């Protein structure tokens, strides 16, 4: 039987081709609201990936529709977005599953290849 936690994890995966950018966006928003350009720069700094504008906004649109982020009122034309509680839960589950994969991969590399 699915747990609510598992459902939240799948919520990120159901974003299709936007699920990868969605994980980066939610991680970027975890420390506070950011607008599109700030997101691009932040993601580039911590992930080494430069999200193109179309890709970024496709993911933003879907994340907002799924209630994982919300727009912050702003006088500026560059509207900031912030993480919602739903988004925080989905991100936590997503990152935990990613960490598990990373830990297994690194352990096996260490055992077989002595690379770490």
């Amino acid at each position: 039987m699915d747990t609510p936690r598992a459902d939240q994890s799948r919520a990120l995966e159901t974003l299709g081709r936007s699920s990868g950018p969605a994980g980066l966006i939610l991680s970027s928003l975890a420390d506070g609201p950011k607008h599109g350009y700030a997101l691009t720069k932040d993601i580039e700094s911590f992930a080494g990936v430069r999200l193109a504008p179309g890709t970024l906004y496709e993911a933003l649109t879907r994340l907002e529709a799924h209630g994982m982020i919300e727009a912050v009122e702003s006088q500026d034309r560059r509207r900031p977005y912030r993480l919602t509680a739903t988004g925080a839960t989905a991100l936590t589950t997503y990152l935990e599953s990613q960490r598990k994969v990373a830990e297994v991969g690194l352990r096996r590399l260490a055992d077989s290849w002595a690379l770490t």
Partner: protein
Amino acid sequence: MTVSVPAPPTGDGGDSRTSQHAALARRLLLWYPRAWRVRYGDEFAELIAAEITERGPCWRRSADVAVSGLRARLAGVGMTGHPLDAGAAARAGLATVAACAATAGLAGAAMWAQLAVGLQWSVPPDRGITLAMDLMSAALLVLAMLGLLAAAPVAWTAAAAAVRGHGRQFRWPAVLVTAGLLVLVVGGHHFENGWPGTGGHLLAPQGSVPGGVAAFGWAATMWITSYWAHPAALGAFPATQIAWMVLCPVAIGCVVTGAVQLLRRAQLSPRALRYEMWLANIAGAELAAFVGGAVVWVLSAGDAGPGAPFRTGAIDRAGLAILAVALLGCAAAARHVRAAAGHG
């Protein structure tokens, strides 16, 4: 909570380069549907302009925006994963299923009418042609019935909304459907008389389709013809017939557009949506059966000489290709309706 904002690359000076970047950003926005531009346009244009200022114009960025914009347009008609709410996604997908089915039905009806009229006049040289006609006729009949069954809940929802005083949004689509149908029926009945087979012919019993139905089908699809590529031959047609060949597709366009708009605007219940999906699945199977019948015709009529009534030409092969593409469109949209209904 504070908003972290890096130093903006766009100066506020409003120099010519900045305004060029803003203009380029505005042009790129046109890839997106209007509703998307209203919601995200300003902030997205700001981002693009900032990117251009920092990194210069780049075809990869333009391509990314174009692809995302087209995906947003496809999402708006239920052809890709949808950012809208599940109900809107299901309605958009259903409307696309209806539009694809209408396109396929029209292409099929044009092929069918040619064959039906041919059977009023000639004995087919191959039994496969009669078999093809029976298959195509049965499939079209079922499709027409499915169309009526699908229209019922939509018409009911629109009528109920009108009774409650909320029918304004249905007014224009309903007018389009009614006017289009009126023109089609009256004009079709008038111009079917231009075909001598009207009302049945001496040889009519050899076909499964009544002569009047065949003649009406011919009149309603006579504009789907290769005569458009031969203006000299077309010039020999009576002016009223040419006018009808122009008016008829407009009328059909009105019916399809109005029906699709009604479907998109009607707030169907989840149960009604499931019913419509059930009908859409059957329609898909019927369209596939029709394509099968058409393929049998093309194969059976392969050796017919020029001028033979059952001969297939380039326009029939194009019709078959349109049918196949519309069928694939139906299947793709239906898949997204099912996904949206699953989330609803």
